[in-house]
């Protein structure tokens, strides 16, 4: 059913877009590729799931995921990440990769490796009639939640001082330093914000994919592909790349289920050959 798959693509794509947005903000301003980004996605999912199952309120779960991921982000940045801003990119990758292991294994140690199913919220249960087919209501709501989050992100990035610094810093990190802005605090907030968004994506995605310690790994790699396709350092690129990636996977799965995931990486290879800076990326931004 192609229409359902197209919608799946949007649902999946919007999650990917959100995760990729967090990734690209951190990379754009801090110059750091967060190989633990998927782990924050997972941490948010678990935090949200606990509160959701304890209180029955999905909204409370979502808020918890956001806040908890934010706090973990602050702690991690202060304790570890900030010592790496001046180190070579390979070291930054290695340490965030190590962080990924630590976060995933900590969660595994606490909760075990079992996959936990997460029921859709009460306002997201059931299916909706669209044209001549039925579609799970929650997936549509996911798109709505993501859109809302993106709107809030847009407000933060384009209407606040912090956002201005982020965007300026993405263009030219040196300028931000010279202008005497408190780089330390800004970096900390931006890192925490980026991973908080990942955590939010995690709980939102939980009713669809369930919750398990390794859930962040696939998302991590896929969000990398999204950033490559959409273009590094570009917010619109993260969103466009996410939707494109989501559609590629879903549509391919409809026609050739075996190749659904594979197609995504083929697309990445093509972008790389034909347009290395990505769809909306800025040339030479390396």
């Amino acid at each position, binding site marked *: 059913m192609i229409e359902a798959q197209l919608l799946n693509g949007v649902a999946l794509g919007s999650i990917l877009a959100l995760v990729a947005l967090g990734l690209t903000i951190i*990379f754009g301003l801090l110059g750091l*590729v967060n190989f633990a980004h998927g782990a924050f996605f997972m941490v948010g999912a678990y935090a949200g799931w606990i509160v959701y199952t304890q209180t029955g309120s999905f909204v409370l779960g979502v808020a918890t995921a956001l806040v908890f991921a934010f706090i973990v982000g602050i702690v991690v940045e202060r304790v*570890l990440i900030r*010592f790496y801003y001046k180190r070579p*990119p*390979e*070291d*930054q*990758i*290695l*340490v965030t*990769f*190590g*962080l990924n*292991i*630590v976060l995933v*294994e*900590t969660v*595994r*140690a606490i909760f075990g490796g079992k996959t936990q199913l997460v029921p859709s919220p009460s306002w997201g249960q059931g299916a909706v009639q669209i044209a001549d087919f039925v579609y799970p209501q929650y997936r549509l709501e996911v798109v709505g939640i993501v859109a809302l989050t993106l709107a809030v992100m847009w407000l933060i990035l384009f209407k606040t001082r912090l956002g201005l610094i982020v965007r300026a810093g993405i263009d030219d990190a040196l300028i931000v330093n010279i202008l005497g802005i408190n780089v330390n605090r800004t970096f900390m907030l931006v890192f925490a914000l980026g991973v908080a968004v990942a955590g939010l994506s995690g709980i939102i995605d939980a009713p669809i994919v369930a919750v398990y310690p390794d859930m962040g*790994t*696939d998302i991590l*790699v896929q969000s*990398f*592909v999204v*950033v*490559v396709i959409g273009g*590094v350092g570009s917010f619109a690129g993260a969103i466009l790349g996410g939707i494109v990636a989501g559609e590629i996977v879903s549509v391919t799965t409809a026609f050739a*289920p*075996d*190749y*659904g*995931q*594979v197609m995504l*990486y*083929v697309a*990445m*290879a093509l972008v*790389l*050959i034909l347009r*290395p800076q990505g769809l909306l990326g800025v040339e030479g931004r*390396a």
Partner: protein
Amino acid sequence: MKLGPVGDRSGLWVEGAVALFLVLFPSIFAAIGAGTDLATRILILGLFGLGVDLIFGFTGLLSFGQAAFFGSGGFITAYLLIHNIVTNSLAALAIGTIAAAIFGAVIGALALRQVGVYFAMLTLAFGQLFYFLDISPLRNFTGSENGLPGVPKPTIPLGATTLDFSSSIGTYVFVAALYFIGFVVARRIVRSPFGAVLRAILENPQRAAAVGHRVPRYKLVVFTIAAAYGGLAGGLLGMFQGYMPPEAFSIDQSGEIIVMTVIGGSGTLIGPLVGAGVWIYLRQELQNIDAIAGIWKLILGLVFILLITGFRRGIVGGIMALARRWRREG
């Protein structure tokens, strides 16, 4: 002025020491209560790590997708042997290794268009591509999530007789011999003029290009060589286990070999072997202690972070740095 290899003042005693170690390894392990099989597994990963060290420790290319070659070589070798297409284990290994090298050249040609973090991200993605290819579309060849069981132990038919390495120590000897050859080859490479250029690329790739070296081609060649090492090691894994697992293609596998190389010390060639030894041995030992059995990986992950932060050179690297300082002050 006599010009020796760049960045390497050691002599042939290193090869001799490694050979001696390989002979004594099973005995050492028996003495501490670990088995020959554990030693064999460590050597297989050490071989995999030789390739990783060449690209990362000597050239500065951080690839998170080396499992693609480990798995490819492994599955092709396993398939050939299981279905009796090839009966000579060495021939099957050779084919798997060459195939892995070809994949390395193709992926390298694409991924090396980028540098630094983009390169790392791309290798990660290509690694995943291979994983999904293994699980889904190629499942009829690869057994998907079940892998390929029934991989025969190493045997070399020689007409009248057949060399059989199926015993535990026999497999060890087979793997150790190939590891030694791999080690000697890697040593020759890093001590050659080609290897000197690799080190220049590690130190300052722009200047290396600016003085007249065709850097992208050097990168592609060493990346292909690393893929070959991965493919050979993968083939040996299948033989050793009698079974080729899909996890050989996983991100975990790609990450593990990087972790081993860094813990042991990148840029030392024996670093990955030491790192593999530490990782695999500790994994076994920690899992035997009830209290921490479930968190061995967490502990090793924390150790990894500590090492990168404060002790970047790893175990072997740290020892070599100490030795250099003693020599200077002595």
